[in-house]
């Protein structure tokens, strides 16, 4: 088994190296074949691992690959932890990645950077796999930053586009703000447990509860709370939680396949995965959990609102991703880690599907992304239409679809949670259901139904995309329907993840819920006795009414509530604030330090100043050196007199 574990990340790495370094030589087809082969191998091996660990219920594997470094008697290691949580993540990552690889053949067909693109996404797959397979904080941070690097490279893939190279710098820097907290969290872990190994850290964690540290003198804070919040700041960056969410909408400047793979299905969920992995730590701090819960709830609700006013098809999906990441975070905060991972999985399928569907529309529309210029596409692109409909239904939580099970489980978990802030979180996720349905079906109706608003030239050329695009859509549509029903028993309510996820007895809400349901269809029946399904239906109906029946009303609403509309269009002003305060402020501070600190004070006053004062002093002293003997004799006599006076009168 161990060689299989090693082969899983190395196969995509091999593909990345070949496509990246030798792509110019072996050509386009060979490059995409080798990259796809690498990911396909990883996917097949992940299936074997899934069978071994989950179905055959083998013991989790925890072992070292090599020792990175030894210092301070601490072994810094690269190693794998393969348990059920890892096995699920492996399947999600490799499957979505494989679909995106295949789709890319069609999407990037005419791009001059074809080989480079394949190299990047294969490298991404490698990094993401290293992240989820890690058994220690060092490698976690490795993978964490490596996926950030590839995300940077891919957002800026079209490096001539000013918006793209602005967005990738922004994404990297905002993520670095998160990593700043994350690294401090890791430092705290090392300080208080003396190890970076998950197993060792988790073993020692309970002994830390109750111990405090002082960051500000006189304020004793729980060590675990501080550590968990610092770690969570890392997750806020990667998983785009308010206020570190600002990079994700802009990341849509990158090619659509990576929006699906990196900025919807996998990389942005790394933060969710990380917190779930750290459940033995987070469980020990209710303050940290409340913090997580509230941040998640804010993201889930307020980012959803922004989806309502977007006209760019990719941005609507992006805001929906933000909002769904908020849902996952809320689940973590409510100690329903397994449910969070469950939603992560179903979301990966249907959101990748929605993004790739949007990409198919964009290709067909000749790179037009404005939904106001679309409409009625269902006639021209039947497969894209049906699969996008499936994706949207799954997203809004239609009973029976994958998203229904995972989202419903989150809502139930939050309702039962007793943490501070859970009331607000419950309201947020409930209203969020309505908003999600509204913006999702707004998009769906604007793109696939109604009047054909595109120009004549575009309309004539509209047609369904080739098989490399549609096959991945179909393959993703299948789990978008089925994954929920198959796994709900186990993941949402059962002890699916075994020892990988730890939940404190007092937080076991999810388990309580389990008693009420006996099967996946029982859940469907029960849902009609509960609120969310009606909220979703109301959202769909309203979208239908506003965008199909009476398309004049949205404009009226917009005029009537101009102020609110402006706030939403400006995304609550986060971007402007960051631009002025952080970016502008840093530049001003830098200039101040440089022009005043370095140039005026140090160089001007001290360095050149001392040079000048020496020069000035010597010009004065020079007068003494006149060269006339009588001057010198005079000075000597005066000096002698002064000396005598001093000797006599002292």
């Amino acid at each position: 088994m161990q060689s299989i574990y090693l082969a899983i990340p190395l196969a995509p790495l091999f593909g990345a190296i070949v496509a990246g370094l030798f792509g110019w030589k072996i050509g386009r087809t060979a490059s995409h074949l080798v990259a796809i082969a690498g990911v396909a191998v990883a996917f097949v091996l992940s299936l074997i691992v899934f069978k071994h660990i989950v179905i055959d219920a083998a013991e989790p594997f925890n072992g070292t690959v090599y020792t990175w470094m030894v210092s301070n008697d601490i072994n810094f290691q690269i190693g794998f932890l393969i348990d059920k949580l890892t096995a699920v993540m492996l399947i999600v990552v490799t499957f979505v990645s494989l679909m995106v690889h295949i789709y890319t053949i069609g999407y990037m067909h005419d791009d001059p950077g074809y080989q480079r693109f394949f190299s990047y996404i294969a490298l991404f797959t490698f990094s993401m796999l290293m992240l989820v397979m890690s058994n220690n904080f060092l490698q976690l941070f490795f993978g964490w930053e490596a996926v950030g690097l590839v995300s940077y490279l891919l957002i800026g893939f079209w490096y001539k586009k000013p918006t793209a190279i602005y967005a990738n710098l922004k994404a990297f820097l905002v993520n670095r703000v998160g990593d700043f907290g994350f690294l401090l969290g890791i430092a705290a872990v090392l300080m208080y447990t003396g190890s970076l190994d998950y197993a060792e850290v988790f073993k020692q964690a309970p002994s830390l509860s109750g111990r405090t540290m002082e960051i500000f003198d006189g304020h004793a804070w729980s060590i675990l709370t501080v550590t968990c919040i610092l770690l969570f700041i890392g997750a806020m960056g990667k998983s785009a939680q308010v206020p570190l969410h600002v990079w994700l909408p802009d990341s849509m400047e990158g090619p659509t396949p990576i929006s699906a793979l990196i900025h919807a299905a996998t990389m942005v969920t790394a933060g969710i995965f990380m917190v779930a992995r750290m459940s033995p730590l987070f469980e020990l701090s209710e303050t940290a959990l409340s913090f997580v819960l509230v941040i998640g709830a804010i993201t889930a609700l307020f980012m959803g609102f922004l989806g309502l006013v977007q006209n760019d098809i990719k941005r609507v999906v992006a805001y929906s991703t933000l909002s769904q990441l908020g849902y996952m975070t809320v689940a973590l905060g409510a100690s329903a880690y397994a449910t969070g991972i469950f939603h992560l999985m179903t979301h990966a399928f249907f959101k990748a599907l929605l993004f790739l569907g949007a990409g198919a529309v964009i290709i067909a529309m000749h790179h037009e992304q404005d939904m106001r210029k679309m409409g009625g596409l269902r006639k021209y692109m039947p497969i894209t239409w049906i699969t996008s409909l499936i994706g949207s239904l799954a997203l809004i939580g239609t009973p029976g679809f994958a998203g229904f099970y995972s989202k419903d489980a989150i809502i139930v978990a939050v309702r039962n949670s007793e943490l501070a802030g859970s009331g607000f979180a419950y309201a947020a996720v409930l209203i969020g259901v309505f908003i999600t349905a509204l913006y999702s079906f707004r998009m769906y109706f604007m793109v696939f139904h109604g009047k054909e608003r595109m120009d004549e030239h575009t309309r004539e050329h509209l047609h369904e995309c080739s098989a490399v695009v549609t096959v991945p859509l179909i393959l993703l549509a299948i789990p978008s329907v089925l994954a929920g029903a198959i796994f709900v028993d186990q993941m949402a309510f059962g002890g699916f993840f075994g020892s990988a996820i730890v939940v404190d007895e007092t937080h076991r809400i999810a388990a309580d819920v389990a008693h009420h349901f006996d099967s996946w269809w029982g859940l469907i029946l029960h849902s009609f006795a509960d609120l969310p399904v009606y909220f979703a239906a109301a959202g769909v109906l309203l979208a239908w009414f506003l965008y199909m029946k009476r398309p004049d009303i949205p404009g009226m609403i917009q005029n009537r509530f101009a102020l609110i509309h402006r706030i939403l269009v400006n995304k609550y002003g986060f971007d402007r604030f960051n631009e002025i305060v952080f970016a502008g402020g840093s530049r001003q501070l830098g200039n101040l330090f440089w022009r005043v600190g370095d140039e005026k004070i140090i160089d001007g006053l001290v360095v050149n100043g001392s040079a000048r004062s020496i020069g000035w002093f010597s010009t004065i002293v020079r007068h003494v050196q006149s060269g006339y003997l009588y001057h010198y004799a005079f000075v000597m006599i005066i000096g002698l007199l002064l000396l005598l006076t001093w000797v006599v009168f002292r």
Partner: protein
Amino acid sequence: MLFDLPILSTLIWTPIIGGLLVLMAGEKWARMSALFFSVLTFILSIPLYTQFDVSTAAMQFGELKSWIPSFNIFYQLGVDGISMPLIILTTFTTVLVVLSAWEVIKKKPEQYMAAFLIMEGVMIGVFAALDAVLFYIFWEAMLIPMFLIIGIWGGPRRVYATIKFFLYTFLGSVLMLIALIYMSIKADGSFSLLGFHTLPLTLEEQLYIFAAFLLAFAVKVPMWPVHTWLPDAHVEAPTGGSVILAAIMLKIGGYGFLRFSLPITPDASSELDWLIILMSLVAVVYIGFVALVQSDMKKLIAYSSIAHMGFATLGFFLVFSIIDNTGSWREAALGMEGGIVQMISHGFISAAMFLCVGVIYDRMHSRNIADYGGVVNTMPMFAAFMVFFSMANAGLPGTSGFVGEFMVILNSFKADFWIAFLAATTLILGAAYTLWMVKRVLYGEVANDNVANLKDLNAREFVILGVLGIAVLFFGIYPGPLTEVMHSSVEHLLQHVSIQKY
């Protein structure tokens, strides 16, 4: 047998004699002969690693000959796990510098090459000397070739830069000489460095000596606020000069703290560690902001060097607060080793960054960021290297730039939360100034005709950057061999500084 030769003397004198021969060889053979001697020195330095005994903190490859008996001055050499990697870094970097000058330096190439070879020998001498006078001679001798390199092959403001460079460094070293002579008097005329380590000194004496050393080493590192010579020197220096300056000469300051300040004046270091930590953190934060607004690429990298060296000095001086907090000097090993790793890694990365700037400067004759834009369109291979090294400069895991910063930040948390907090801002600042430059220089549409006419890397440039890239990647993925050689020496040093001297 070759291996019976005293290896350290061979390493010092091969390049110096080689440099003189290159000088005589004349313009035609200057390049080949310089390459020969630099490669030869590098090969000769390899046994230093392969035959190094990692289990002991004692000085190895020792040599001892009487030199000036009337003053008790010896020709004494030896290396431990702290100086050995720095010597190999020196021999490695010199080869690259010789290569980098190949067709670029047209004015008196034999003198240029000779200056670098002689400087190589002298710098190895600084790292290997165990006699204070010998050390001081090498220390001062090092200034001369660098002074000439900047003064002859430098840019338009080279005279201002050389004088500033010389005065700054000279000011520091004079006080150090006084301190050395004072200690020799206390030690009955001995100039042995290892003897100074065990010399009992009162706290007051230690404070004065510490201050003298601080000035000498802080200028070299350079630490805020005595850093302003560095950007000027870098801007005016030719590419090779910048590379040696950043990769090796700055390390001599850091090395001085480890070899002199800490072991000779441990109690003064303990008293004043807050000052060094403060200066290091200012270097990280303040200089980070200053780097952000630079419009000259070389200045930007020069400021980033100062910020990165802040991590080295920070790592060295964490030990006392860690002893206070945890009661054990062993806990501080991570930070000190991190500081040394940071010095080695910065040697590779800053060299690579300056070489990258050199590559485009040779083509465009401008270091101004605003003159560039969209270089990736015409130089894709170069852009790939530059992005890679920039990421290393920003401390990306998997590159050597990450290792040292990671170790120091982890360790500084044990000293104080706020030290770690301020140190970790480099994650944001380092990425901001480096990648913003990358964005403006490499990305975007082709900015002007000059950029449109750029030619991508030639084979020579490719090899230089490729070799550095491999080094940066290797130590990022597997820093174990690097930290392994320094364990014994660092532990010995930490134990030594934890004991009161008076």
